[in-house]
């Protein structure tokens, strides 16, 4: 007993801690990747903007001539003119984005790697000696190096990243192609800084050439980290936990492109808070286990004491002894039961941990969405940046309009990503009760809904898309009408999208092997085997920027929710067929279509219709009387109960929302009188029932208003047969 409790407590502690740690690691890794991305984005922006400019500058005849003549004065004077926009000593950078593409210094080196002094020209501050030293590995082979090199170098003392520069080294060649020297532009390094979700400060720095450059960190810590990274140099990226003076930190590193010495971007995340959290959780679970053990111990001790008293007397009479023992055994079983109850509670705690895991899965999905969302944000930011930074473009109305249109389209895409999610996050509920729907009717609706798309294409692009429906049978299924319609419209859209040259979409309903079947077939481009296998994955899309990748995964989700199956057949160049199989709503023989389900097959029933609205009562009465049922009506729950006590009914049909006593309450009373009587509850807002949980216990079937005669017949048949 004690062992079991101990084992479970131990296992729970283990699982909880592991989960917590894994989640934390994943979260921080995501954060690091984001930070790195923004860091690299700055570099990319810089390299694309600066690289071409440098190449142009290096081809300037005047610079070549000056370098050839070793005329330093001419060299820097001309370079200052050529480098406008990349380096401007007089104008301080206005904002961060500008700062990142503005060099802080530039210098020329001759073919032997010696830095040519800038003299009185304002070429930015850099100590020529330390620059020469930093460049030594490159300049040494200046004749052989590539046209352009990017590298990180340290130009100052100290361990602040401010001492580092990213340099772009562009070789300058003479008229005959021989190297004359090189132009070096130095850029300050700007790292994104931030705080983690708990508000603790994230530190970031650069590891370069055995040294770790970071602000606000003690020498010992720096040394420790520098050594740890040095040890793992063979890897381009990695992470480990490092014990610093201020507590344990999780460290991520990733190699940066640098042609001189290896450089790594490094981020440090403090772990103190999360470790504390893990410790608290561990103690909570252990304390719970201890409490459970003590309770069990106490209870058994109590009973043992209570028993031990009479035991002395029992010695005399063994018969009594036996009964007492039996009593004791019974009590012990009681204690056991108590302990089992505690065990159940413990398991509930475990369940909570699992729930946490689910939440993290949700987080993962959110990250995926964030990715999609970021993709749509990228052009928004990009075009906004381009417009804001380029006055000439802003003045050009047509260009501005084009950018704005792209902004709008991207924003629309972003909003559609979000709206698609609604269907996606609905959990699969195995107990879900669906109203009855006519699949053929849904197909007709879906075809009509999508008509603007395929009909519109005919006119807009001069291609013909023909949609044909073929109802081999009219299957009735239990299902969420709007969700199933969404499935069909999605498949139709996909089919139309798959036929850029036009073609035929055929939608067919049938009943096969006692299952309702819908086939949506197109004559489009078809899918490769890989695409076919992956097309149901969320966020997988072949439509590029036009698809969210959620359509088919949602289709799959909805079909699963209906306990159905989705089959995809596809041949390249011939087309794709989606086959949806859903369970039939009732046990109709396969050959029999719903039109033949006539009322006559039912024996006439006594039905009580309860609804506070007279018109609803009349409609229901008319429905039921067409099928020869005899109908009694009641306008309130109270009246219904009175009638019910006086007469025998086979079935009760009841509105949900009624004054005084609502449908559910009435149903409960009715069931108390006769628990075998079937009760159908009519509701105008099934959503609320779903949200509260399952259908009310006293109700057999919930039907959504408005209700069709067919649906009512099916439900009644099903219920009567069942009873």
């Amino acid at each position, binding site marked *: 007993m004690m062992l079991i409790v101990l084992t479970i407590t131990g296992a729970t502690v283990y699982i909880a801690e592991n989960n917590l740690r894994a989640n934390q690691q994943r979260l921080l890794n995501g954060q690091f990747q984001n930070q790195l991305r923004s860091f690299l984005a700055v570099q990319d922006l810089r390299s694309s903007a600066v690289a071409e400019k440098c190449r142009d500058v290096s081809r300037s*005849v005047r610079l070549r*001539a000056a370098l050839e*003549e070793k005329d330093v004065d001419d060299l820097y004077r001309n370079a200052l003119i050529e480098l406008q926009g990349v380096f401007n000593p007089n104008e301080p950078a206005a904002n961060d984005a500008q700062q990142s593409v503005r060099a802080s210094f530039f210098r020329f080196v001759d073919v032997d790697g010696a830095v040519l002094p800038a003299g009185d020209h304002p070429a930015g501050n850099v100590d020529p000696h330390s620059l020469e030293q930093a460049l030594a590995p490159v300049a040494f082979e200046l004749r052989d190096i590539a046209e352009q090199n990017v590298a990180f170098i340290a130009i100052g003392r100290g361990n602040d990243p401010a001492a580092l520069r990213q340099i772009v080294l562009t070789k300058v060649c003479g008229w005959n192609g021989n190297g004359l020297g090189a132009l070096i532009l130095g850029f300050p390094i700007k790292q994104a800084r931030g705080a983690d979700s708990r508000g603790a400060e994230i530190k970031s720095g650069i590891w370069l050439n055995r040294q770790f450059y970071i602000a606000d960190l003690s020498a010992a810590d720096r040394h420790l980290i520098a050594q740890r990274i040095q040890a793992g140099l063979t890897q381009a990226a990695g992470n480990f936990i490092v014990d610093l003076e201020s507590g344990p930190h999780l460290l991520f590193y990733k190699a940066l492109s640098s042609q001189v010495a290896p450089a790594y971007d490094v981020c440090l995340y403090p772990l103190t808070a999360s470790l504390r959290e893990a410790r608290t959780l561990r103690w909570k679970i252990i304390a719970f286990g201890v409490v459970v053990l003590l309770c069990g111990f106490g209870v058994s001790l109590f009973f043992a004491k209570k028993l031990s008293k009479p035991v002395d007397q029992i010695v005399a009479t063994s018969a009594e002894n036996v009964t007492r023992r039996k009593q004791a055994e019974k009590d012990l079983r009681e204690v056991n039961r108590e302990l089992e109850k505690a065990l159940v509670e413990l398991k509930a705690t475990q369940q909570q941990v699992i729930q946490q895991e689910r939440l993290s899965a949700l987080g993962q999905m959110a990250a995926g969405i964030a990715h999609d969302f970021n993709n749509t944000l990228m052009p928004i930011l990009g075009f906004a940046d381009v417009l804001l930074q380029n006055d000439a473009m802003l003045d050009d109305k047509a260009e501005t309009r084009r950018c704005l249109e792209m902004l709008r389209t991207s924003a629309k895409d972003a909003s559609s990503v979000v709206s698609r999610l609604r269907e996606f996050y609905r959990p699969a509920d195995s107990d879900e009760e669906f109203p009855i729907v006519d699949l053929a009717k849904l197909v007709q609706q879906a075809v009509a809904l999508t008509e603007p798309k395929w009909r519109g294409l005919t006119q807009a692009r001069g291609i013909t898309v023909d949609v044909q429906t073929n109802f081999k049978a009219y299957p009735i299924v239990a299902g969420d009408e709007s969700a199933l319609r969404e499935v069909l419209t999605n498949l139709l859209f996909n089919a139309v999208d798959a036929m850029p040259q036009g073609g035929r979409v055929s939608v067919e309903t049938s009943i096969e092997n006692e299952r309702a079947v819908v086939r949506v077939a197109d004559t489009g481009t078809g899918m490769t085997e890989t695409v076919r296998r992956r097309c149901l994955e969320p966020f997988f899309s072949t439509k590029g920027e036009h698809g969210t990748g959620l359509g088919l995964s949602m289709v799959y989700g909805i079909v699963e929710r209906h306990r159905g199956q989705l089959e995809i057949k596809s041949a390249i160049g011939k087309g794709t067929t989606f086959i949806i199989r859903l369970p039939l709503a009732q046990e109709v023989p396969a050959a029999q279509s719903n039109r033949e389900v006539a009322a006559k097959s039912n024996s006439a029933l006594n039905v009580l219709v309860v609804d506070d609205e007279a018109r609803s009562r009349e409609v229901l009465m008319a429905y039921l009387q067409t099928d020869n049922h005899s109908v009694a009506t009641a306008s309130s729950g109270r009246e219904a109960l009175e009638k019910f006590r006086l007469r025998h009914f086979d079935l009760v049909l009841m509105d949900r929302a009624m004054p005084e006593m609502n449908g559910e309450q009435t149903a409960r009373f009715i069931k108390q009188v006769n628990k075998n009587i079937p009760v159908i509850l009519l509701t105008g807002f099934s959503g609320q029932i779903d949200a509260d949980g399952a259908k009310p216990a006293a109700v057999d079937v919930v039907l959504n208003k408005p209700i069709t005669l067919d649906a009512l017949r099916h439900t009644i048949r099903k219920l009567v047969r069942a009873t």
Partner: protein
Amino acid sequence: MNAKCLIPFCLAGLTVGAVAKDEGSIEGTVQLPPPAVERALNQRYGANTEAPLTPSNPPAAVVYLEGNFTANPKTTSRAVAQMSQKNMLFAPDLIAVRTGGAVEFPNLDDTYHNVFSYSKAKRFDLGRYRKNEKPGTVVFDKPGVVTVHCEIHDRMRGTVLVLETPYFQKTDSTGHYRLDHLPVGHFTVKAWINEANVREHAVDLKSGARLQLDFAAK
């Protein structure tokens, strides 16, 4: 001028004639490097690539006499030398002038040119000019090698060799030259092909001497 080429084996063609004339002359051939391989026009100036591609300037050298001339005759002819721009090249791409000599740089192309030099011997910048615009002449007042560029066309490169001596001549494309009306005395004859390739021979000129002097490749 760091070429040390006083090695006698290249004096093979040195002969001394005996013609009764006061003034000596030297004649001979400079073995020239092979013509430069035709380079395509720089793609950056795509618009100009319709100009016909001609072979670049044939190789040539300048041969001149160096030493102390007792009777230093001032060249009376103040003819202005020309280095024109044609088909995106300097034509010719090598000229020699005497210190104080003037050079014109006319543009014969249908595009702009901007001739300038950063050389120590002569810094100048003519700015941008078109055909029929007169950019003015440049007077070269210090001896030395002046490398001439066009700011717009990076493969254009010309050399103006500014010499103190009045006795110089540019070879023809086969490398042949002839220096006439030379004074009597001990001099050095130099053949300038490019900055890294200058060959020289010591000569002893007697009255009326006619020397044959060939410059073989190094």
